[in-house]
């Protein structure tokens, strides 16, 4: 049977198991929108800005592990997604972006709403396509989904000209994908795994340094088993939080610029580092030459380009993190049994406990009657929810406090823009996660600056009854930048004070959401509880200490043990 391009697209999405798409219409995709009502299994969420659509698709993908999909028109619709595409690219999140394009005869003519989106997004997509031939459409969609979620996941964009959407051809969805130039390597080398097991056994001061790859490859169960069986302490990057239970005694906390004393000192004193699905970001390593300088470095990553990029690696392993962890657990059982020579880790763990007790994450508690401390808000959220919720964050101090003062226990419970650090990400990402899990409590921990970047999506949340909770830590500043100005730029607070702010409570109400304001510590818990129990989207604006800073802090370019403590 012959179908139009628009129908082929929607049929193909069905074959890929897509149940929701986030989108915004326009002339170049009107043919697709014309067909959407005929596909009742496909829910379309109409956003208010295309940046919202891509972040929602991304949040959906982070929370579920499935591919997120967004649909936008050509030109301005397409360019509005670029920040979100780059965000997903940096954090290796599987999303498929469908953009409309002007009809093929007009391409290259500066036609109305034409933009070379394939050219624009080439450096920030895993791959992208311009479909000029209707007979290649189904195959292209199949490839796009395959590429987005295999190997190192990432965003894939498909640009679809209007005339191709209107043409007809027989629909035949391919079963398999064959791409000569694309063969991700999943299985770890057996000898290398053996070597790692022996190194781990012999190591006196081993540390597991886990990244987002552990979460995206579903390796956290196996990683947790390894750590707990052999008493190996675990630290994680911002992207790795949740891959190891944050309440386990072996948990060191996050490492890096705003990492814990114990994590950074463990790395610096380690004799063996097992880096799993992490990429040695500069926010993690600080001064490279001093990062883990005493350690034998083992690095596992699905992406060969991550290995040896920043740091010298002694044992490089290109593999899927989960397959590697499974193999390592098997091998460890064998090695540990053969050689009871496995070095006991008690001394190392005692040292770590000492670091943890001496220098826990802390902050100066609020003075009597003084302003609320932002950290205490995150702690309150943790206490009330017992950690049973999905947290998304904006970017800045709010993000770091949400990383530090909440114990993530399960993968995919923290959604945050790690690589690109995109303000405006958290709220739409929370909507995406809520669309996937309507019953779960989803909370965006926000700054007063960031939340204003995609605030218009309140309408989307209200429209689809997605009861996302936004907790704004309102410090009246672009806090993280102000912190840098305070510490390194002579307190020249140029353009970081948000003098004019909306009344967030009224704003929430104007959109049909609920709004709460907390100014006194005594009201915090009760208000949060009330908001979390409200069955609709809410803003809780908490007026916090305007000058509070994120500590510990490693100044840029310094070694990670040169920390400014509270």
């Amino acid at each position, binding site marked *: 049977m012959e179908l139009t391009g628009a129908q082929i697209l929607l049929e193909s999405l069905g074959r890929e198991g897509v149940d929701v798409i986030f989108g915004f219409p326009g002339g170049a995709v009107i043919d697709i929108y014309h067909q959407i009502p005929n596909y009742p299994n496909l829910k379309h969420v109409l956003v208010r800005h295309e940046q919202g659509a891509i972040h929602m698709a991304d949040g959906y993908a982070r929370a579920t592990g499935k591919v997120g999909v967004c649909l936008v028109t050509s030109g301005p619709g397409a360019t509005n997604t670029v920040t979100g595409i780059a965000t997903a690219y940096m954090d290796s999140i599987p999303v498929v972006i469908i953009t409309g394009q002007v009809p093929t005869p007009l391409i290259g003519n500066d036609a109305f709403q034409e933009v070379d989106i*394939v*050219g624009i997004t*080439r*450096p920030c997509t*895993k*791959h992208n396509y*311009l479909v000029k031939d209707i007979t290649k459409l189904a195959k292209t969609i199949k490839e796009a989904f395959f*590429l987005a979620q295999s190997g190192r996941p990432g965003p894939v964009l498909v640009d679809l000209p209007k005339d191709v959407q209107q043409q007809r051809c027989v629909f035949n969805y391919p079963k398999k994908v064959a*791409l*000569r*130039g*694309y063969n991700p390597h999943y299985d770890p080398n057996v000898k290398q795994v053996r070597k790692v097991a022996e190194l781990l056994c012999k190591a006196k001061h081993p540390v597991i340094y886990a990244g987002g790859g552990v979460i995206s490859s579903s390796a956290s169960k196996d990683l947790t088993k390894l750590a707990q069986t052999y008493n190996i302490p675990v630290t994680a990057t911002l992207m790795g939080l949740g891959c190891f239970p944050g309440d386990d005694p072996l948990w060191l906390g996050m490492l890096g610029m705003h990492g814990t004393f114990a994590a950074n000192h463990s790395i610096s004193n380690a004799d063996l580092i097992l880096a799993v699905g992490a990429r040695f970001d500069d926010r993690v390593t600080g001064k490279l030459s001093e990062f883990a300088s005493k350690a034998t470095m083992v690095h596992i990553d699905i*992406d*060969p*380009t991550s290995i*040896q*990029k920043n740091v010298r690696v002694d044992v490089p392993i290109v593999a899927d993190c989960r397959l590697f962890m499974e193999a390592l657990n098997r091998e460890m059982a064998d090695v540990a049994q053969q050689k009871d020579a496995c070095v006991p880790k008690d001394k190392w763990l005692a040292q770590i406990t000492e670091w943890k007790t001496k220098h826990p994450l802390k902050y100066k508690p609020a003075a009597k009657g003084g302003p609320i401390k932002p950290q205490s808000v995150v702690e309150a959220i943790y206490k009330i929810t017992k950690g049973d919720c999905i947290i998304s964050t904006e970017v800045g101090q709010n993000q770091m406090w949400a990383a530090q003062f909440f114990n993530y226990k399960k993968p995919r419970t923290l959604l945050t823009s790690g690589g690109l650090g995109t303000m405006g990400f958290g709220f739409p990402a929370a909507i995406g996660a809520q669309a996937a899990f309507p019953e779960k409590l989803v909370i965006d921990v926000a700054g007063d600056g960031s939340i204003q970047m995609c605030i218009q999506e309140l309408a989307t949340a209200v429209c689809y009854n997605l009861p996302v909770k936004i907790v704004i830590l309102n410090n009246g500043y672009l806090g993280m930048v102000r912190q840098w100005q305070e510490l390194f730029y002579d307190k020249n607070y140029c353009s970081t004070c948000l003098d004019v702010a909306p009344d967030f409570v009224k704003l929430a109400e104007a959109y049909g959401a609920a709004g709460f304001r907390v100014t006194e510590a005594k009201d915090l818990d009760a208000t949060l509880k009330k908001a979390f129990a409200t069955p609709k989207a809410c803003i809780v604006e908490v007026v916090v200490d305007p000058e509070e800073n994120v500590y510990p802090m490693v100044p840029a370019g310094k070694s990670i043990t040169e920390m400014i403590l509270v």
Partner: protein
Amino acid sequence: MRHILSVLVENEPGVLSRVSGLFSGRGFNIETLNVAPTLEDGVSIMTITTIGDEQIIEQIIKQLRKLVTVIKVVDLTEVKNVEREMMLLKVAAEEGKRAEILRIVDVFRCKVVDVGFDELTIEVTGTQDKLTALINLMQRFGIKETARTGAVAMRRSMQ
């Protein structure tokens, strides 16, 4: 060190910009780049020469392999190879100088492919060194224009 990379790619729109964009976006440098179709339908070969330390070259090769439209990357510097470049060189050649220029053309086993009143266009093929040597020799007559293909290279058969 200078490396010669042989890159087999799908011949489709945008493939060149994917490759060149990878270099520019990551701060790598392309010295020469040459692309043309192979005997196989839909497949082209690029020869890229680039300069960098071992770590950079390793990154370049891995990043190239990561592109979905790149089928194969070989670092020819690591094997015995044949490398050639073609150049057209237009040199000033007044009456009195012509004979000497033609003598050099002969010694270098290159060809005159176009003759004007007071200039000659020479086609020369060879290694970078040979091309440089010819340029050096011709400089004193006055070189008016050059056009070079950039290196093309292959693994040697017997090794």
